[in-house]
């Protein structure tokens, strides 16, 4: 028993070291939030199509397929940066990407896609931003993986990067496809 008391300070120091180690991890983002939606059914999407003459965007139409839902806006700089990798998401992993222009004027979103190319299987305009709030986004860009049963499997807050695609999205896609 006495000996245990002597071990106590060592134990406390070990716990502190572990806590500080975690705190100092450069890959850790302290402002990252867990998504409340992962593992739950995706909110319904019913938005006017973005492209001229496009039908309404309805997530239910993609049932049975793993899709990525990507929120973007023409005024968002990181969205510009991630744009090329969205194409890769479709080309390399065979995941169709649904684009939702969040709190953006449809004209501006259309110009954005005309300039950078359109990587999306379908697009919708969420001018009020309400669909984004239904998904619990904190800003743009954000990308969600929604599986064939309509369950949200993964949420990526922030832009898709080559490293993110390889290290984070690829495993998440493999997991979601199982």
């Amino acid at each position: 028993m006495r000996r245990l008391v002597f071990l106590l300070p060592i134990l406390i120091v070990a716990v502190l070291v572990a806590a500080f180690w975690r705190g100092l991890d450069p890959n850790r983002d302290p402002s990252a939030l867990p998504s409340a939606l992962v593992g739950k059914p995706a909110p319904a999407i019913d938005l006017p199509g973005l492209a001229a003459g496009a039908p309404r965007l309805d997530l239910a139409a993609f049932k049975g397929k793993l899709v990525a839902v990507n929120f973007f806006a023409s005024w968002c700089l990181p969205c510009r940066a991630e744009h090329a990798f969205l194409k890769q998401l479709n080309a390399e992993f065979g995941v169709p990407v649904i684009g939702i222009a969040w709190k953006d004027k449809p004209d501006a979103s259309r110009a954005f896609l005309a300039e950078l190319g359109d990587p999306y299987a379908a697009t919708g305009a969420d001018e009020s931003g309400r669909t984004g709030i239904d998904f619990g986004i904190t800003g743009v860009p954000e990308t969600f993986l929604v599986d064939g049963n309509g369950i949200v499997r993964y949420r990526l807050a922030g832009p898709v990067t080559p490293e993110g695609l390889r290290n984070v999205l690829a495993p998440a896609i493999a997991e979601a496809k199982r």
Partner: protein
Amino acid sequence: MRRVLAVIAMLWLGLSAALAQEAQLADPTLEQRARDLSREIRCVVCQSQSVADSDADIARELRVLIREQIAAGKSDQDIRDYLVARYGDFVLFDPPFKASTYVLWIGPFAVLVCAAIGVVIFFRRRAQEPARVRELNPDEQNRVARLLRDKADGTEGGA
């Protein structure tokens, strides 16, 4: 002091003006409810501000949403549930007491109790200490005798 008050008053006016720019509810009691509720919802971008204090886009959006839902006759709890379903317990500045938040609620008190126990043990031990004064061994007794004798002789120390 006066100057501080003046600054606080100005900030307060500025804040009210920021809130006033948005469409308000016609009924003042409903508007008050919307404002009170906005104060307990955390802005998900600027995480230590409430939705009422934040100027972020998403915070504005949430304020509008809260007003809309209040106007639609939803209760405060309905609106909290709506936001928690989308953003998790994190959006509430006053998170609920449940299994996943036990550490948050109890942790500080547990640390306090551990510290109190440590202090009690420390003082108890110290109180017992005088009872355990050890007898001097013959060697030490000789040294004491020698030192006392030297002092009586008026010479310093000396080994």
